[in-house]
């Protein structure tokens, strides 16, 4: 579904991505972990071309999105991103947040848009808040609407960029719950996250990134109990100690 080959990106002198190779198969849930500044978010942003990579190739469902001739918008709608800061359109109600792209991108008529908005808001348990503005919702509720907004496009995959990092611990649960149910529906998901518990339970594969490179890539049970690489061990040791505190 998503193929990344030898991806490089620098911001000035800083090499954020140093040759990343990654494959996400259809129906797979891949969780990317790693310390801050390891290039996880930049990787996601390069996959959707929100940031143009310096070198390398990204292929999404058979289309090489890094090819300058490709119409980015027609690829992006198949792999929408859910952001850390939700980024709901603040001037639009929850349902209108969802129908905007349906109208502009998919050219659906009003009735179809409403049906689709209903369908996805129900899926994330936010049907009763469809007329609320983002500013009237809690962070967890906003993120669920953001997931519904991505889902409404009936995408081939959804990218999650630290979807729970801006939430209080008590609100992360409702968002992770929605993500769990998406995973069980067979949605292809590429998730950057610090939620080790979620990765352990839901991920088909866990990828450990450090200094712009993928250090280790494997099944969660193996990654969390018996990682091969020393750097992965160190990170997990530090990280788990920290999250226990």
């Amino acid at each position, binding site marked *: 579904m998503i193929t990344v080959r030898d991806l490089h990106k620098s911001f000035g002198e800083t090499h954020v991505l140093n040759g990343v190779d990654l494959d996400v198969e259809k129906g797979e849930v891949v969780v990317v972990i790693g310390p801050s500044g390891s290039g996880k978010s930049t990787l996601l942003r390069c996959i959707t071309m929100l940031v143009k990579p310096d070198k390398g190739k990204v292929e999404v469902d058979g289309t090489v999105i890094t090819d300058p001739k490709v119409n980015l918008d027609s690829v992006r709608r198949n792999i929408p991103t859910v952001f850390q800061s939700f980024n709901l359109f603040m001037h639009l109600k929850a349902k209108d947040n969802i129908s*905007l792209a349906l109208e*502009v991108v998919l050219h659906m008529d009003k009735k179809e848009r409403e049906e689709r908005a209903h369908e996805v808001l129900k899926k994330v348990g936010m049907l009763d808040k469809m007329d609320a503005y983002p*500013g009237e919702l809690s962070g967890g509720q906003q993120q669920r609407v953001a997931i519904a907004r991505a889902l409404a496009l009936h995408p081939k995959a959804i990218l999650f960029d630290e979807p729970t990092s801006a939430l209080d611990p008590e609100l992360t649960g409702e968002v992770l719950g929605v993500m769990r149910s998406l995973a069980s529906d067979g949605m292809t998901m590429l998730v950057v996250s610090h939620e080790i518990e979620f990765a352990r339970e839901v991920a088909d594969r866990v990828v450990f990134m450090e200094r712009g490179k993928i250090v280790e890539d494997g099944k969660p049970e193996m990654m969390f109990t018996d990682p091969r690489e020393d750097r992965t061990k160190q990170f997990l040791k530090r990280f788990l100690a920290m999250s226990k505190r």
Partner: protein
Amino acid sequence: MDKRHEFVGKVRKYQPLILIIILVLIIIAIIYVLYPVLTGKDALLVWDSLPFLLEGAVLTVEISLVAIMFGLGLGIVVGLARVSKNRMIYGMSTVYIEVIRGTPLIVQIFIWAFVVPQIIGYPFPSMLAGLIALGMHSSAYQGEIFRGGIQAVPTGQYEAARSLGVPHLPTMLYVILPQAFRNALPALNNEFIIVIKDSSLLYAIGVFELFARGSNLAGVTFLPIPFYLGVAIIYLTLTLTLSRSLALIEKKIQIPGLGVSA
């Protein structure tokens, strides 16, 4: 709801009333000033010329509205150009703003009224020259107001739309501009008031608007007190009406759950 909120709420509820009271006080003060003049035999003269003044006020409103609209349309374009990634478009809009902001409005009015007609060898009415000068002048300021409004919209809004496959133009149109416009409204309100007041400068090229008429009457009748003060009151009424209506609109289109309720 605590005490402070209750108080603020009450002030808000009675705001129009308070405003009217202030206005009445101003008018009473002015009439007091006018009283000695009006009680003399000049009173009739002043009263009789009121329709003449009000006609000027109508013209001032028309000039201001056209200039504001012209400035608004051009201002949105200039504002968009100022956030453009295209160096050429950005550069041109920057030069436009700097030139217009950096020269006095009265000079621009004279350039449009006398310099441009001579260069193109085709005279046009001083009214048109005045409208162009006023509208362009305002467009530079409104352009900067819109730039500020656009840049105050978090980049995440743009990225979110683009990540859903929404192209650049619809993203600007449906996501960025509606929010930018709300951000810009308080500053726009200010700018619109300035346009109303600046329209008085057109008297210098012979447009017979409110100030020109007042000034004319004052000169002919040797009665500066009622006419200049009268003109001031009429301007104040126009600007207050505009700013109050815009404040209402501001409140009406405010996004629920965002910012302090004004």
